[in-house]
């Protein structure tokens, strides 16, 4: 709703835009706070926060929000738990840029053009050679239910209405994708390494549709199988069909799902060029912050798991374009 607004997108280009995890920047528990105390990003963020007007910085408490910050940590605008309304964010961005005009002249900041960048992945997976991007969404519970954001209906929806269209994502990095490619000398249908299947199930087949939930403990994996079947080679590429089942249950929550997917493999370069898998099934229960206490199921849920590669850089003549990630 906010980021799709054209004016917000336009104004954001005046900034060095960055997304980062609030709890790692400014933890709310003592142990983690001590751990990051000397980290430059924490010190920078903390110093900025202490310059914010009362009410806009939430301490103690969550630091989730949107913040507009000068290069040396100067306050420009911002708020914890900033609203999801484009008009409010637009107003904050505009005020920030007005203050910036004054600040940059006072301090002699160069104000050079900000390079266009493409959004990346979380830093722990972004540079890994084989990355799976996982999306989760509720499946329809009755005929005609869309489970998607409808601008006509939802543009001005209230905060808790997000459950109508909620989806989330998760990431998993592997050392390489060859574990998902059948051995050329083996039978046509082969099992995917059970350790990998269990790892996928434990770490990303998680009901986080409405919010974070923990990974599954080892003991929760009651069943996790995936087979891969070689198809014909066409123009130097071989198709692969995946089929499987998972059953996860830790006593508080469960997921039972069937898996089906397709891959495209280039034997010459040993590259799993494309990997796409869906897991469709039934979930029950609730866990940590996934906001299912009033919706414990059983209810249908779906996952889409695909190989992710960094998005192509936008093609603009003369543009100073870079990919910025840690």
């Amino acid at each position: 709703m906010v980021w799709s607004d054209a004016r917000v997108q336009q104004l954001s280009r005046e900034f060095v835009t960055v997304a980062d995890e609030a709890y790692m920047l400014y933890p709310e528990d003592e142990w983690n706070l001590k751990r990051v105390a000397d980290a430059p990003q924490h010190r920078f963020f903390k110093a900025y926060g202490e310059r914010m007007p009362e009410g806009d910085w939430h301490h103690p408490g969550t630091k989730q929000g949107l913040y507009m910050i000068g290069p040396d940590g100067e306050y420009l605008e911002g708020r914890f738990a900033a609203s999801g309304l484009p008009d409010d964010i637009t107003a904050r961005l505009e005020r920030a840029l007005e203050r910036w005009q004054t600040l940059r002249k006072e301090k002699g900041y160069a104000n050079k053009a900000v390079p266009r960048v493409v959004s990346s992945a979380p830093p722990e997976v972004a540079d890994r050679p084989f990355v799976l991007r996982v999306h989760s969404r509720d499946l329809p519970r009755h005929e005609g239910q869309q489970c998607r954001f409808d601008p006509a209906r939802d543009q001005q929806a209230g905060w808790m209405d997000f459950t109508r269209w909620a989806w989330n994502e998760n990431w998993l990095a592997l050392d390489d994708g060859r574990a998902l490619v059948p051995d050329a000398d083996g039978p046509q249908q082969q099992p995917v390494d059970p350790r990998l299947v269990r790892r996928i199930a434990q770490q990303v087949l998680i009901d986080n549709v409405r919010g974070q939930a923990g990974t599954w403990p080892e003991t929760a994996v009651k069943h996790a199988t995936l087979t891969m079947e070689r198809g014909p080679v066409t123009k130097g590429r071989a198709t692969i069909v995946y089929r499987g089942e998972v059953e996860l249950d830790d006593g508080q929550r469960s997921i039972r799902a069937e898996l089906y997917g397709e891959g495209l493999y280039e034997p010459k370069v040993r590259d799993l060029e494309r990997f796409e898998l869906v897991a469709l099934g039934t979930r029950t229960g609730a866990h940590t912050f996934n906001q299912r206490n009033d919706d414990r199921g059983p209810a249908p849920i779906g996952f889409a798991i695909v190989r992710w590669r960094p998005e192509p850089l936008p093609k603009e003549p003369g543009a100073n374009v870079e990919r910025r990630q840690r």
Partner: protein
Amino acid sequence: MGVDSIRRIDRADRDAARRYRVAMLALTLALAVLAPQQPTTAPHPDADNFREWLTFVQPSTDEEAYRTIGWRNALWPAVQEAQQLGRPILLWTMNGHPLGCT
């Protein structure tokens, strides 16, 4: 108590019981109409429907509009870049990385 009285009481009891059963049936039907619909069984993925479900679960372009902004994924390198450019920073921060699971 006379026999006629007992018969009237018996009839009254049967009438009451019948009215009760009718009322309970009406209530049951009303609840069936008004109660939340039971979730459908999850579909079985296969070659014919897999791509349709893949598209259904994945976010649409509109739902992923946030990615068009161009987000760096860590604050400190962004701060260093901003200092080198002499430009302000727009920080979006959530519990769970905004580019990951939130």
